[in-house]
């Protein structure tokens, strides 16, 4: 049986215009890495978001961070002010990973 380690996973759906600020914050609070899905679409309280053409104004990105609980809390806290006036969803879940040292 492989040893599993408990971590927090944070999924942030954010409009492309704000993604840079979110990523800078994630790096600043000490997360060791993140994964980006550059183009996601769906429906939320700002209506349908898709239309990647022309400009990034209606494009959403998904940023996934897996990290220790303390850092996860800081990301959640600091994402609040950054998302004011922007489309954004922040979801935190418990996950288990192999290779503890990667996160």
């Amino acid at each position, binding site marked *: 049986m492989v040893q599993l380690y408990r971590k927090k996973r944070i999924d942030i759906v954010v409009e492309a215009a704000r993604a*840079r600020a979110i990523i800078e914050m994630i790096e600043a609070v000490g997360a060791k890495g993140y994964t980006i899905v550059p183009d996601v679409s769906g429906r939320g309280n700002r209506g349908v978001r898709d239309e990647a053409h022309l400009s990034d104004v209606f494009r959403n990105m998904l940023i996934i961070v897996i990290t220790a609980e303390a850092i996860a809390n800081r990301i959640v806290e600091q994402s609040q002010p950054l998302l*004011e006036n922007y489309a954004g969803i922040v979801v935190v879940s418990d996950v288990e990973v192999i290779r503890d040292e990667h996160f």
Partner: protein
Amino acid sequence: MDTLLQLAIGNLLSPMVLFFALGVAAGWLRSDLAIPEAISKGLSLYLMLAIGFKGGVELASNGVAGTVAVALVLALALSFSLPVLAYALLRTGTRLDVPNAAAVAAHYGSVSIVTFVAATGFLGYRAIPYEGYVVAMLALMETPAIVTGLLLARRANPAGPTASRPTFLTKEVAREVFLSGGVVLLGGSFAIGWITGDKGMAVMAPAVVAPFKAVLAVFLLDMGLLVGRRLHDFRAVGWPVVAFGIYMPLIGGMIGLLAAYAIGLSLGGMTLVAVLAASASYIVVPAAMRVSLPQANPAIYVPLSLAITFPFNLIVGIPLYHAAAQWIAGM
């Protein structure tokens, strides 16, 4: 001299406008017709390259006269000042709040490159020449309006909490605006055309002259698809604002036309400056506003400039401004 009606019908029945209409219909009916994003990006890059290069060659063969400097200053002045007028009209004629009115106003001081390119297609269709440096005016008019729009938003809310104040021209916005791919390619091609002149044109002509109108028609099909899908967003915009999307280009076009006449541009040049002053940005300015003025709602300013003003200028505006230019030139 064509009558306005002949011009309008001629414009309406050009392949460019018909392909645009096809795109609008297909987009509105939610057809799965789509031009792959990479191809449409490629087409728009081609159009920037071709229009920039032709403008540069034109400038090289006609030389730099005093008029050029005057025209460039005029371009900056139009882009800086048109948002002030737009903002005043929006605040009195619509219910838009300060950030939304300021954001919309910025769009109307800036320009739509595709509308400009379509207008050169319209002139080319009729073999009407224009001054090459009008392309440089196009490049200069893209950004000053953003500064004015942000100033309008900031002036109206000087003591607000920091979060609701527009972050001014940050490095991020500056890069977005001055180094956006379109601006770099347009300016770069203009410089290359200017440096290489007629010899350069001999090399580039097979690529930048002959296929130009056909590529433009295909690109307008893609624009039509985008507009058609956005037509469903009207409800969010509201009728007084929709009306603004139609009367503002008429007012801006008239101002551009008179200014171009005053500095002595040709018939073709007057038409193009009127189009520049009438058109509204829907690529560079939305991206800048989203970063700098996030309280403004993109579901208002994008459909307004893309789905109302752009088709209006393409179908009605261009022949109208040209007819007005003919009338003024013939006085």
